[in-house]
């Protein structure tokens, strides 16, 4: 395997995951929260594919493809919820959508 080892890819994946987590925590717009969630899922995918290359088994790549499908499904449902919220003329602000708070 020419180039950097698996550890370099894992460090990259960790930094990317922390960036996404930071975005989910700090942003108020539900759209950008969804985009940051996609970043977190992709960071997980990068780690999966790095480990698949490390162990030489294809199962990690299959798992990454499955995660991709779940991410697409999550984006569909999340965007549907955002459109439904905006149709009820509520503020698009995750701090103000507190109807379900216990």
């Amino acid at each position, binding site marked *: 395997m020419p180039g950097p080892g698996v550890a370099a890819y894992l460090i990259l994946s*960790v930094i990317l995951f922390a960036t996404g987590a930071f*975005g989910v925590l700090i942003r108020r717009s539900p759209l950008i929260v969804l985009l940051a969630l996609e970043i977190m899922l992709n960071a997980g995918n990068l780690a999966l594919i790095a480990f698949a290359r490390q162990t030489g088994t294809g199962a990690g790549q299959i798992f990454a493809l499955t995660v991709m499908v779940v991410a697409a499904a999550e984006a569909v449902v999340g965007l549907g919820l955002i459109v439904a919220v905006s149709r009820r003329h509520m503020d698009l602000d995750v701090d103000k959508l507190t109807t379900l708070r216990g």
Partner: protein
Amino acid sequence: MEDFLVWVVWIVAALSLLTSGIAVVLFQNPFYSALALIGNLASLAVLYLLLAAEFVAAAQVLVYAGAVVVMFLFVIAYLGGRADAPWAGTPSLQSLAAIVAAAAIAVEIVVVIALKAGDELSSPAQVEDSFGSPAEIGRLFLGDHLLAFEVTSIVLLVAAVGGVILGSAVPKEKRS
């Protein structure tokens, strides 16, 4: 020579990955955030190619940069100016806590990986040229992982139906 070229490609892809990731989080306009996400996903696809995952790289560009981001852009355009989310003034206690939490997550992951797999990371396995090719992925999906393949199709169907229902429901107060 090949090693040097791979390092150059890796460093360029890594820098573009991290800067576009930070750009997605920091842009005020969601439209620019979604565009930065395309750059993020493209640099990830380059890294997947370096990791001998050709099919996943192609699927990444087609499914993510092609389909998911376009859907995001449609919704952002539909919402128009309401989607904008400017920063809430001066840095608050909440943003400080978010930085601390994100840093804590990063440190935790590094510690766990170093403890559990630190010794095994130095010597990657030898793989054949067919590793990660479409033929190999297809054989795995329809052989060893057939159940995951079928469950995936049900997840997609449920998500599609849910998206239609969520998007088409009319608020109650308007109906009466």
